[in-house]
């Protein structure tokens, strides 16, 4: 097994076209242990990138290297150390969680006794011990999601790719999962794709924003937040003013108060005399980045 420090995923000029439509264009990325938060609007190319990294689909052009080995030519080099949780995944409804995980362990190449121990640990980890013998068909969406998380961790992956992993989880489970990701990231590479910016904010050590198949931003969260300093403002407005303000500024949030509406907006210049600068968050960064690429304000 490779030592955590030597783990590297690299993509070089990665492109993917579906029937002539470019989903990803000349994508270059280098990842080392830690959590990469992958952000981007719908159709930006996130899922395509993750499917290629997960060896499900092959690029039209470019290479993907895992510790120097080309996984486009030799996907087996990665598969035994890969954990993948797709966004839309299902289960066999007539199998129990225990049986489903035994099945997944076998095809991931995890051996008998080791698999049993690992499944037992993971059932505890995802809080499904009591329901482990029940058919999966009777599980709630959140419980199924937890089964998905467990299967992704079965082979103790060195590269963990998770697509919208906290969808359907209740707040407590979401916090548990975020903590779990943080714990895991010390010794492996985690790619977390999500629309929930707060998930990225609380876990990611690196952030990449993809737009129209291009990598637009790649930086550490603190760098991105620093760049936005002095560009996020809050002020009170009336409900009647709100539609016009939304047309005029990049409004990243509104909050109803007794004396009107508290408006939060991204703008290089002070939007109005009463606006006060506030500490930026990743949602501001994300909206500003995507808006810039679309010709919006900023």
């Amino acid at each position, binding site marked *: 097994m490779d030592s955590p420090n030597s783990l590297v995923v690299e993509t070089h000029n990665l492109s*993917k076209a*579906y029937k002539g*439509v*470019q*989903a990803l264009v000349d994508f270059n990325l280098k990842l080392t242990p830690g959590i990469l938060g992958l952000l981007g*609007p*719908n*159709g*930006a*190319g996130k*899922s*395509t990138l993750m499917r290629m990294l*997960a*060896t*499900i*689909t*092959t690029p039209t052009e470019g290479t993907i290297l895992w510790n120097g080995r080309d996984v486009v030519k030799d996907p087996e080099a990665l*598969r*035994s150390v*890969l954990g*993948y*949780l*797709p966004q*839309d*995944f*299902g*289960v*066999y409804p*007539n*199998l129990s969680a225990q*049986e*489903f995980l*035994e*099945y*997944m*362990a*076998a*095809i*991931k*190449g995890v*051996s008998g006794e080791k698999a049993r121990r690992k499944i037992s640990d993971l059932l505890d980890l995802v809080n499904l011990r009591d329901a482990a013998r029940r*058919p999966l068909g009777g599980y709630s969406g959140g419980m199924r999601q937890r089964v*998905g998380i467990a*299967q992704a961790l079965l082979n103790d992956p060195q590269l963990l790719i998770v697509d919208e992993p906290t969808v359907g989880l209740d707040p407590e489970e979401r916090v548990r999962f975020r903590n779990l990701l943080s714990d895991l990231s010390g010794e492996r590479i985690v790619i977390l794709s999500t629309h929930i910016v707060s998930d990225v904010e609380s876990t990611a050590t690196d952030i990449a924003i993809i737009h*129209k*198949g291009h990598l637009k931003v790649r930086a550490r969260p603190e760098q991105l937040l620093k760049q936005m300093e002095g560009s996020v403002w809050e002020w009170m407005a009336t409900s009647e003013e709100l*539609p016009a303000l*939304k*047309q*005029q500024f*990049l*409004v*990243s949030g509104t909050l109803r108060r007794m004396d009107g509406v508290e408006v939060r907006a991204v703008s290089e210049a002070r939007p109005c005399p009463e606006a006060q600068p506030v500490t930026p968050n990743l949602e501001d960064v994300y*909206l500003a980045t*995507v*808006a810039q690429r*679309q*010709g*919006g*304000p900023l």
Partner: protein
Amino acid sequence: MKTLRVLYHLARADFFERARRYRFLLTLAAVIYLGVLVSNGTWFLYLMPGDLNPLSPRYRGEFNSAWIGTMTVLVTNTFLGLFGFYLVSDCIQRDIRTGVGQIIATTPVSRAAYLIGKWISNFVVLSVLVLILAAAAAIMVLFQSEAALDLGALLMPFLAVALPNIALIAALAVVFETVPWLRGAVGNAGYFFLWLSVVIFSFLGGMALPFLKDPMGINLFRTSLVAGASAAFPNETIGWMGLQSGIPRDTQFKVFNWPGLAWTPGIVGEQWLWAALGLGLILLSAVWFARFDPAREGLRRPRAKPEEAKEGEPAEPRKKAPRIALPNLSPLVSKLAQVNPFLGVLFAELRMLLNGRRWWWWAITAGLNIAILSNPLSVAKQYLLPFAWLWPLAIWSEMGNRERKNNTYQMVFSSARPVLRQLPAAWLAGVLATALFGIAGAVVFLSNGALPGLAGWVGAVIFIPTLALALGVFSSGSRVFEVVYLIWWYIGPLQKTPGMDFTTGAPQVYLLAAAGLLLLSAYWRSRQVRV
């Protein structure tokens, strides 16, 4: 060792997933019933004289273990040869449908190991059914036997013929699933004709391939049975074997002793070659199996809404995207729906039925209709119209189950009047589309003044989509209709079996049946809507 363990777990999980379904219990019940039909003599094996004179006496063997085992295997192979395929051919599609496939695609399991695992699972499912029929045969020997139970003679036909045959069927089911365009109605229809050809070739004396001649063992057993009967009745010409249900009780039989086929390693090996062929086909299909790659699979995805980006397609630039202002919303009612809400739904259902066909599909439909118009009426009736009533199989098979298949049922069933408006509109759309597909038939019947033919045409236009809708609603899938209709089409419109041919003459019975089916569909849909 590791590969064996992977295969074991692949097959085990797949088997449990299927065996715990309600549908599997129904299948078991159907097979047990088939076993009862065999053991109580409803299904009967006999030999006929070479002249095929229906008045001549027939021949049967003593009810010993060999005869009963052979008879049961022939029934098993004939039925499981067809229905077994449709029963098990869903294992890869299930992995696509559930999304488990995209997780499997990221594991080290090879294409070949995955497909072999599915093959073993299919084989085990069918073996359970064979085991039940073997038990039925043993019961028959104990209760009806004219000789003592001989387990070897009883079970050898199962071990040497039935098992390799189902191994081949299990493999074909997997192979068909590895080709995206063979997964639906085209594959189901293709397999039906393949099965039919094999049965016909087997009865005619087997195929002319070296070693691989007779997967169902029909010709193998017939040769031995005819030899046994000819030895018992040396002056009589015995040439044909019959396998029939509901043979009259007063039928006269000449009974002979048949100790069973003289099994040799060569015969057994030759039959098991079919299983080896199955394995070979599996390994070959691993070459083109796309391993759940959406770019190669052509996986069917829900149509993206106009405002959403398509899968793998960059999002449409939203000018000033963050500056969201509510547009002036107008009611989503088309002009047609404003005139009459039912017409609006009917138009939408019709568009849904006809959309998505490629140009060549329409070209063949048009070609069939032109051929009907330009050939004599007798040719059109005998050959061309039956094919016009088969060609749109894939369109009919979507009726009644499209909502489940595309997971839109929660939206459709919660819309206004799903039973009293949407379902009748879907039915009428099917009828109109069917009339369109075979329009030339109506023209030639009318122009020739052949009113009975026209009545049959009307019967077909109404009965086929009604049957499709009803079976689609009942089963929430397309396969039941595809299998039932293919068999019905073969026996009825193609073979012109009286009573089964809904395209000839008096269509009253089929119109009544259609009305009944439509009411039952409405009742069943109203239950689905409430649930």
